[in-house]
């Protein structure tokens, strides 16, 4: 039997969804850049404290109980599946739209509550549960909270030394090092299809080869990729991803969890 308060979370959710689409319509995309470090750390810590306090008061909060329910699990997976198709089918990526960010936070919130509740049972820590759900949590959280700190820069590089690159909004960014193109090598197969592109780039005077599938990493979380080339030189992409270690930990946990699921099946561990 549902008590009288149980419809409240669904109304709150419906209002929130309408509000997200309204804000998107009125103001455009979510201002991700506002949350660059240290704002994302502050907001993330605050969010976790609110979730923890909410979890402790779950007996008294219909919304927290809803966020712990099986319905929230199915809603999360359905939202994720629909969002995947919408993101995949439209030509312009809208991963920073208000509804996308809102849906992402809903899924992550549900996942957080479920981990708080389910990480152990009477017989101890549920290892596979923690590895799988914790891995997804780390990967998703690092993508969301790391997004404002991530930078994708482009630069057209010729033989002249250069340390200026453009970010996605077209603003100039200064690099910590100086780049110049020393040589560029293109090889083709007999039928004319490309076989190998290789740019030899001087990074602060030191020559390194940058190829497709073989970026150069000048420092932790920063990689230089070869994107394309023309008569004047080559186009490089510099990706700065300070949260990489968190993402990598999440991916490693998911790989381990997948291995455990292959070996054990998905049945509950206590059975």
């Amino acid at each position, binding site marked *: 039997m549902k008590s009288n308060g149980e419809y409240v979370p669904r109304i709150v959710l419906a209002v929130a969804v309408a509000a997200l689409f309204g804000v998107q319509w009125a103001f455009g995309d979510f201002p991700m850049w506002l949350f660059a470090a240290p704002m994302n750390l502050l907001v993330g810590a605050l969010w976790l404290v609110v979730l923890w306090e909410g979890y402790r008061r779950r007996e008294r909060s219909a919304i927290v109980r809803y966020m712990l329910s099986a319905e929230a699990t*199915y809603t999360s997976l359905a939202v994720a599946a629909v969002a995947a198709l919408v993101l*995949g089918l439209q030509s312009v990526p809208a991963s920073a739209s208000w509804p996308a960010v809102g849906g992402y936070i809903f899924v992550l919130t549900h996942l957080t509550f479920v981990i708080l509740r389910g990480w152990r049972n009477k017989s101890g820590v549920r290892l596979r549960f923690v590895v799988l759900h914790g891995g997804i949590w780390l990967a998703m959280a690092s993508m969301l909270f790391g997004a404002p700190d991530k930078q994708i820069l482009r630069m057209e590089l010729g033989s002249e030394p250069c340390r200026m690159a453009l970010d996605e909004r077209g603003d100039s960014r200064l690099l910590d090092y100086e780049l110049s193109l020393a040589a560029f090598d293109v090889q083709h197969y007999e039928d004319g299809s490309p*076989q190998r592109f290789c740019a030899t780039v001087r990074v602060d005077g030191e020559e390194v080869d940058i190829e497709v599938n073989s970026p150069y990493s000048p420092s932790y979380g920063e990689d230089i990729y070869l994107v394309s080339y023309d008569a004047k030189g080559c186009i490089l992409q510099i990706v700065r991803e300070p949260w990489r270690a968190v993402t990598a930990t999440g991916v490693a946990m998911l790989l381990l969890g997948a291995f455990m699921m292959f070996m054990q099946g998905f049945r509950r561990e206590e059975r």
Partner: protein
Amino acid sequence: MIVGWNIFPWFAAATAVSAVVASLLALRNRRMEALVAASLAVAVLVTFVALMWVSLERPPMRTMGETRLWYSLFLLVAGVATYARWRFRWVLSFSTLLATVFMVLNVLRPELHDKSLMPALQSAWFVPHVSIYIFSYALLGVAALTAVYVLVKRDVKPLPAVENLLGGGVALFTVGMLTGALWAKQAWGEYWSWDAKEAWAAATWFIYLGAIHLRLMRPRAVRAFCAMVIVGFLALQMCWYGVNYLPSAAKSVHSYNRNN
């Protein structure tokens, strides 16, 4: 070159014969003998790969022919691992068939031995990404067929088999997605770019996760569970080849067989 494709037909024949013997033994439920024969098939192919590696003085992973060699090897290894763990009698026949197809192609189409891959495909991630996916498709396909049987015949006896196939299939599907994401990071700097194939892969994954959670949380909802396993496999068809017919596939990072 002393060791090379010239001696491959011998190794291919020895591998195929051992793998076929293993498949027949597995079908007759002679498990230990089947595992020994299947391991022998793997060992023969590993020997050839190792000889190629030493002879070429680089990992044999640069041409179409070399890639097929790894497909065969990974499929055989995945078959042995799945059979050793889950004892599906048919699984060695399946891995043997696919591995043999790739080996026969290498024998019959020698012109592809030296056909190098385009730069984006020249990666250590390529072979595991593709062959793990191929194998997960097989497990998920048999899971869907078994789910159809449960629904049509109203017989719940094969349900544990559906669960095991689904668990193994989704585990390998997850590894396929993650190896793809790590490869994309290495090639382009982004883990995920939401092109049509990736979007359908993600949607498929979420549907399968829904099926698993439904099974765990509502064990009595057998029909809904089977329906989701079938819907998941239909979504997988879109992911696998259906997206090639979508207009958005023209700019997909996964369209390697097109002239672009």
